[in-house]
């Protein structure tokens, strides 16, 4: 089980700020593919991966990051703080 978190327009497209996902995906990319297969909302949110950033257990990571032992994966657009 992995907690998936969504922020900004990713959250709006998916329609929820977070959810627990039952998955055996080995990497973030596999998790993305799995979610895309579940519902068109994910397809809309993950349509352009170059416009997305991912954090694994609250650290910025790449889509190739392994998920073994991971509790939390977050998807969001490039940050606009400051």
């Amino acid at each position: 089980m992995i907690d998936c978190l969504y922020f900004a327009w990713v959250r709006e497209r998916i329609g929820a700020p977070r959810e627990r996902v039952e998955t055996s995906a080995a990497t973030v990319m596999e998790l993305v593919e799995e979610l895309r297969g579940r519902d068109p909302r994910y397809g809309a949110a993950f349509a352009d991966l170059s416009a997305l950033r991912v954090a694994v257990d609250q650290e910025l990571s790449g889509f190739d990051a392994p998920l073994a032992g991971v509790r939390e994966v977050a998807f969001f657009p490039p940050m606009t703080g400051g």
Partner: protein
Amino acid sequence: MSVRVQSARFDAGAELNAFSAGLENAGAVVSFTGVVRDREAGGMVAMEIEHYPGMTERAIAGIVEEARRRWDLADALVIHRHGRLVPAEPIMMVATAARHRLAAFEAAEFLMDYLKSRAPFWKKEIGPRDAAWVAAKDGDEAALGRWAAREQ
């Protein structure tokens, strides 16, 4: 070193004075304040700032830690708000103190550049009839390059 992530409004002047009062022998204090301004198109009603509780504090602490590693800072302060803000309200503030002005300036710019692109905040501009997420600027990511180049 102090990092605060809050929805409450803050008083930049009072924060600057409190920060400066605690310093010993730091002759140079630099502050940056980001203020909600109108959109290019005008007519902004509010700005909503979303963030990622937990990661936000961790990311900012890491950025401050890196600044302390690079410059000899007497102190540093980061305040960043989230939630609903109206035009002219302060969004965030950075302050740095050092013995020499160059270190204080550089560290403040470094903190700003990294907060902009590496701290998990997202701004949405709310107009009277529309709302849109602020897009990251290419320049913001590019700004990080000037610090990376220095590391060699």
